[in-house]
């Protein structure tokens, strides 16, 4: 493929063209020898490999990062997969850490802008309360108050609704959004809905699920 064809393929996949998406996934992800070899070397659990591959694929399709054809699309994809593996390694390592809270920011768009404004890289020993306070600062108001009342004060949704004079459904949504935002710092995927990617049937069709079992 020429660089122009690769740019076109990626743009069509990002635009929702199913044929382009399938071609992108099969040729550049699941059937790529380099990608397979990287996953086989660096990810022990075969079922994790499938998930990482799919995460990386979704990340590429949704990303606004421009591919200008200066390198090969395969190189671009390799980097996306590498980043997806590293994200997974970081989560696994954090889960094993007993004395450390590690916050890794995997945001984009508006969230990233907000996060950049308040973020300062850090590596220091602090009191655990300071860690919780730090986490709360990453949640914008009014989500923060709702989440804080729920977690720190252990109030029910009804009590929070009464206290903040807010409809109960709104309270629920605020808590949901705040928690999802923080969970992303601990490895929850930002690609948590798969509508922009290959749905379960589609995955089956391109053989994603059992790909590594066959190879």
């Amino acid at each position, binding site marked *: 493929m020429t660089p122009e064809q690769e740019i076109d393929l990626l743009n069509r996949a990002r635009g929702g063209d199913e044929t382009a998406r399938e071609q992108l996934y099969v040729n550049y992800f699941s059937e790529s020898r*380099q990608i397979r070899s*990287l996953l086989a*070397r*660096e990810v022990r659990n075969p079922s*994790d490999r499938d*998930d990482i591959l799919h995460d990386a694929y979704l990340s590429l399709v949704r990303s606004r990062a421009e591919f200008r054809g200066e390198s090969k699309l395969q*190189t671009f994809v390799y*980097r996306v997969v*590498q*980043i997806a*593996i*590293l*994200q997974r390694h*970081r*989560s696994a*390592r*954090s*889960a094993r850490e007993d004395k*450390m*809270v*590690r*916050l*890794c*920011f*995997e*945001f984009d768009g508006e969230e990233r802008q907000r996060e950049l404004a308040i*973020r300062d*890289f*850090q*590596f*220091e*020993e*602090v*009191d*655990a309360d*300071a*860690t*919780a306070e*730090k*986490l709360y600062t990453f949640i914008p108001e009014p989500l923060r108050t709702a989440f804080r009342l729920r*977690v720190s004060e252990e109030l029910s949704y009804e009590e929070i*609704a009464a206290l903040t004079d807010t409809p*109960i*459904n709104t309270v*629920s*949504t605020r808590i*949901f959004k705040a*928690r*999802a935002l*923080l*969970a*992303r*710092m*601990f*490895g*929850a*995927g930002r690609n*948590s809905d*798969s509508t922009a990617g290959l749905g*379960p049937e589609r995955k089956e069709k391109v053989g994603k699920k059992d790909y590594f079992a066959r190879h």
Partner: protein
Amino acid sequence: MDCQEPSRFETRPQSAISSAEEVRHENLWRLARQEDFAEAASLRAHLVDCAGCRRLFNSFQELGRALRRTGPVVLAVCPSAEELADYRDQKLVPSEASRLSAHLAACPPCREDLDWLERTAEPAAPKVVTLSRRRWLFAGAAAAAVAVVSAPAVRYLRRPAGSPFSDLAETLELDRDVLMEGSNGEQFASILQAAYQDFGRGDYVSADGRAKAVLSEAPSNPGAFYLLAMTQYKRGQYQEAARLMDKAESIRPKSAGRCWAALQMALLTGDTSVIDTECRHLSWHKEYAEKARKIRDAVSQRIASNRIPLSVLA
């Protein structure tokens, strides 16, 4: 919804929670906090098969732990994996690169991550040499006739493992004088000195971090490029090392120490054009002139006698 069985998270009439995804999050959060509720047992069983829910559950567990901890903990606020990759590829703006360098110097987990990115970087695809054997012999003879090694037709494309001249290369060590050469006096001397010590301890990630910090302030500091080239060399990434050495040379050519390093790297990549150039440069420097002459003769002789492993031409 990133779940294999989304139907299990339906909303209930009169419930405060208005979407299935919110139900899913709420239930997984409660499970992560070890609350007892009606669906807990079946949800726990569901986690075994559903990677999406398992991941969300794990992150909720971590989040819950972080919010409930007591006593002293190390708090690490770290860049994203993508930012680290951008840093590695020198794609960050200088101010961001500088912030990240400072963080890397303090944060061992990030240094490990950066090292992992380096180690698993995409292997360079070997470029195909298209000369046929007959044409190669002709090119070899032509090169011998003019007694130079830089004829474009016989330029070996960079193949670290297959370089026919790698046995001629001497082992390089980071030379402190070369590192400090032309490094704008005292301004960056202390950073480069610290990087020199990192390098000596085998901590190439920290050394890289300091070199990048220097480059973010002084993008044409040859010492910093030399240092980056040397860390790549020590990792066995000879092509990348040679590329960085080339940058150092283009900024301030004719430094004997850097020419020598560039020559050794070129012997490992098999780049005859660079071998020829550096040998010529080194002929003007007493301490290297004789060794450079011998190398050039040996390379010329190999090309002339076609004693190049055929695997290199494949």
